[in-house]
């Protein structure tokens, strides 16, 4: 259930999805609030990415609705949601391999005048790195640039699927802090990931996905106090 004291900017609600005969999502819901980071945790294969992809129209759900601001989308399309201020960072390969990252940032600025390319430098300070193609970067550099690109869009809602994937602990912390900064500037941030320590540091709302459905645990402290979440997911953290 959504936090009763807050109005979510993005709501992906009551999603049912099955692959063939195997049910993956059973009435799963997740909400993202303006100025806050919502972290969606769950073991591999529990359906975190599937929930996001269904909510953004990249997969067709059996049942479910996406609400972005005042609008309900029963058949969501990422392009339409993006025009309304959402940015989706997939778990890999955001950039076009044929253009330099700087050229792609220029494209972003040309399309959305409200974008803030300078934000990229907060997380990719290395000079000349953005003049490379994505395939000329290391995995960690590319991921940082992708997260920076998402922030440069200055989105109203950022949905990031495993933004810390493949990052060294120091870089992972920097990216998590960057997501926290975006939220502090008013963005509604919804992220998934397994880097519990770094993500819990910036989490305002924690959602745990298990058995195909979602459990809203509350804030970081409430999540850490949740016995089942601690035993079945976090273990030694």
């Amino acid at each position, binding site marked *: 259930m959504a936090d009763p004291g807050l109005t979510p900017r993005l709501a992906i609600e009551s999603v049912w999805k099955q692959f063939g005969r195997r049910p993956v999502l059973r009435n799963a819901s997740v909400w993202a609030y303006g100025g806050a980071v919502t972290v969606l945790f769950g073991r591999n294969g529990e359906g975190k990415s599937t929930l996001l992809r269904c909510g953004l129209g990249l997969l067709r759900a059996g049942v479910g609705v996406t609400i972005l601001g005042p609008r309900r989308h029963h058949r969501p399309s*990422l392009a*339409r949601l993006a025009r309304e201020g959402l940015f*989706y960072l997939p778990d890999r390969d955001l*950039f*076009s391999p044929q253009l330099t990252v700087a050229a*792609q940032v*220029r*494209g972003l600025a040309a399309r959305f005048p409200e974008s803030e390319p300078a934000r990229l430098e907060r997380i990719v300070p290395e000079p000349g790195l953005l003049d490379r193609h994505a395939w000329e970067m290391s995995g960690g550099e590319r991921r940082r640039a992708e997260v920076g690109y998402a922030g440069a869009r200055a989105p109203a809602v950022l949905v990031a699927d495993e933004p810390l994937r493949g990052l060294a602990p120091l870089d992972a912390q920097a990216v998590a802090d960057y997501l926290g900064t975006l939220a502090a500037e008013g963005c509604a941030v919804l992220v998934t990931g397994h880097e519990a320590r770094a993500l819990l540091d910036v989490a305002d709302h924690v959602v745990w996905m298990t058995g195909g459905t979602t459990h809203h645990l509350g804030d970081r402290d409430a999540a850490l106090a949740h016995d089942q979440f601690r035993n079945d997911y976090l273990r030694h953290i």
Partner: protein
Amino acid sequence: MRRAFLLPNLGAMHPWWLVPPPPFRGLLLRRAAVLWILGRLMVACFVLIAEGPGSLTADAVRLGMPASLALTGFVAALTLLDLHRRHEVILLANLGVSQVGIVFLASLPPLAFEALTWLIPV
């Protein structure tokens, strides 16, 4: 008066969503053009194999209208497939460009080149 009436409607329709911003637009047009050339070479190979070397005359450059349209659709579909293969569809969607917009833009180069083959005297 009429202009004032039209402009807000155009704004509400957001016609720009059909077309990607500059660097992506050029990339997409170039890719569709290359795929059209490959498609035409493929057609020429089929003609050569089916009817022999003497059959490849200037007249063979002009396809019939249905074949030209089919080739245009084929190139647009291949371009979309190529974008999916390179995971660029999500990037373009993040820029507000839907798959309809991609197909629309990718069909422009083959359509223009096919029209040229009809205009150039052989």
